Structure formats: structure tokens, C-alpha cells
């Protein structure tokens, strides 16, 4: 095994790197000093969160912050994911990207048969558990996304179950539902994103479900990196039509 020491790396190629290193060390010292400065810590928002938790309709503190107190952040975050997919897709070109062959293998295939249902189950559990324990839309979405990645890894035939045309609407479901529900809340006389009615918990669970689904799909699409075949007007070629719905 090669010992990759400080001197042999290609990245610090001699003395001209030293001034930068020294400056960075100074910067680290300044950061540490600011961090350790005594008596400069304010009480955070934990007490306030606890005081308002009952009105929020969710038991878990982190979920309450994410989907109720700071739901606007979460709404924008769903858009960040969607935006990531848009950017990745806009960068994809039909030519050249075909070098990625499926890394199929017997082990992976059997692993997938076992893991994917398990992951979907765990994801659903996390979604359900999120209201009062650890877990929630993001974790559930992450696990679902992981399942999607696993399927994509060897272009599993399971992917065919998922309709091609459903991909883009599926990606948009979470953000769109989030936006519409929030606007609907205004129609009922509340503020934008206000869910404080007795049904708040129900709405939040529905929101979480939609968000988790879209987050999972977005994450898988980020990995897939390739837009689905679109209708005329886009006209991209699809060299291989049979495999991979959104690779």
C-alpha cells in the first residue's frame, strides 16, 4: 500500500503553497477564537419551540420546525431539489453519455430483490414515525431515493412498472401540492402556509407524504441524470429504448 503522506501528494507541490497554508491556519485560529469566546452564547429557540409545540399539531420537534414553524424553508428546499433535477437534465446530451453500462450482477440483483421492498417499508415507517420520533419526509424520501438508485444501478426491470410519463408529474407533485395547499390555507382565511386548524396534523401528514414521494423521486432522478423521452418539439433521440425509465 502506498503511503500517501503530506510530502508526496500532488497537491502541495512545493513552497509556494506554504503561504496559503499558513493563512488558512491563521484563519482556523481566528474561527476557533471566535467560537470559544466566553459568554457569547445566547439561548437558542428550543424553549420557544417547546412552548408552541402543542399548537403545531406534530409531536416531533424537528418535524414541527420543518413543516410548521419554518415550513417556508422546506417549501423552498423542495424547489432546490427540483431545480437540481432541472439543471442536471439540462446538461444531459444524447451523445456521449452512453458509456455508462449497467453494472449488473447476480449479487446486485438478489440484493435488490431483498433491499428494495425493505427500503420502501422503512421509508413508509419513517414517514409515519416522523410525527413524534426521529424521521420524517426527508429521511423517508432519502430512503425511497436510495431504493430508486439501487434500481437504476442495474436498470432493473422493476423500473418498467413506473410509467414513463409519470416521472415529471411525480417530481412536481410535492412542490405543487405544497404550494397549492398553502394557497388554499389563505382561502380559508389564514396566512400563506398556515395550518393551525384542528386538521393541521392531517394536512401535515398529507404534505409529508407528497413531499417524501417527490424527494425520493428527485434524488433518484439526480442520480439517473437523464430526462425521460419527451414529446415532439423536444425530439431527443433515445438510442436505447428498452432500459431505464429515467436514466
Amino acid at each position, binding site marked *: 500500500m502506498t503511503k500517501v503522506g503530506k510530502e508526496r501528494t*500532488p*497537491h*502541495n507541490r512545493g513552497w509556494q*503553497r506554504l503561504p*496559503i*497554508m499558513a493563512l*488558512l*491556519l491563521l*484563519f*482556523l485560529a481566528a*474561527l*476557533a477564537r471566535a*467560537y*470559544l469566546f*466566553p459568554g457569547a*452564547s*445566547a*439561548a*437558542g*429557540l*428550543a*424553549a420557544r*419551540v*417547546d412552548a408552541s409545540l402543542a399548537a403545531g399539531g406534530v409531536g416531533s*420537534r*424537528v418535524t*414541527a*420546525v*420543518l413543516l410548521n414553524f*419554518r415550513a417556508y*424553508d*422546506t417549501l423552498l*428546499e423542495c424547489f*432546490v*431539489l427540483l*431545480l*437540481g433535477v432541472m*439543471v*442536471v437534465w439540462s*446538461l*444531459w*446530451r444524447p451523445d*456521449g*453519455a452512453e458509456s455508462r453500462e449497467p453494472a449488473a450482477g447476480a449479487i446486485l440483483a438478489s440484493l435488490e430483490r431483498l433491499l428494495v421492498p425493505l427500503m420502501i417499508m422503512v421509508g413508509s415507517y419513517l414517514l409515519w414515525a416522523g410525527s413524534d420520533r426521529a424521521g420524517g419526509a*426527508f429521511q423517508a424520501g432519502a430512503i425511497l431515493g436510495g431504493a430508486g438508485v439501487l434500481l437504476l444501478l442495474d436498470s432493473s426491470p422493476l423500473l418498467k412498472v413506473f410509467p414513463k410519463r409519470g416521472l415529471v408529474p411525480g417530481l412536481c407533485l410535492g412542490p405543487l401540492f405544497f404550494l397549492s395547499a398553502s394557497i388554499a390555507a389563505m382561502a380559508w382565511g389564514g396566512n400563506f402556509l398556515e395550518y393551525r386548524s384542528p386538521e393541521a396534523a392531517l394536512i401535515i401528514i398529507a404534505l409529508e407524504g407528497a413531499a417524501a414521494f417527490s*424527494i425520493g423521486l428527485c*434524488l433518484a432522478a*439526480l*442520480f439517473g*441524470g437523464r430526462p425521460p423521452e419527451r414529446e415532439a418539439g423536444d425530439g431527443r433521440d433515445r438510442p436505447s429504448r428498452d432500459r431505464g425509465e429515467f436514466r
Partner: protein
Amino acid sequence: MTISPALIYGLTGLALFVIGLAGLLLCQQLLRKILAVNVMASGVFLFLVTIAHGSGALTDPVPQAMVLTGIVVSVSSTAAALALLCRIRESADHRDLSQKKGER
């Protein structure tokens, strides 16, 4: 001041931020630069969560929610960066970002 785990992790977070910064400035490969940004992000996240511990006995859910958001934002931009990297590599052999060495 007593030494708490939060303190250690906070300092580690700052150290990771600076290491990532060093990588971003000094590494030449784009892939390495993207990795460096991810290391920086991890450092910031670690730092954010330790703030929650420093302020009182209760763990503060607000920074935790911030970090959760941050992790998702970071995977999104990483995916975009890697897609861009692949496009660049496809179209030309642009390995280095800058022609001029001293620029960054």
C-alpha cells in the same frame, strides 16, 4: 469552561471547513474541488448542530432542521456540479479551471 462533546465537535467542524477550503483552493482536479466543497459543507453542518448544544441543556431543533435542509441542498448542488463536470469532460479536455495559476 468545561470541555463538552459539543465543543470538540464544533472545533472539528471548523477544522473541516478550513480543510475543505484548502482543498478547494489548492487542488487542481475538478472532482477534488467538488469533494472539497462537500467536506466544507459537512464542517459547517457539524458546527451548526453544536451551537444547539452549547446554548443549554436542551438540544435546539432549529439548527437541526437547518442542517437537514442543508444536506438536501448540498446533494442537489453536488449532483449539478458532477453533471457539469461530465459535460465538460465530454466536450473538451478541460482539466483545470484556470489557465492562470495564481488566479485562485
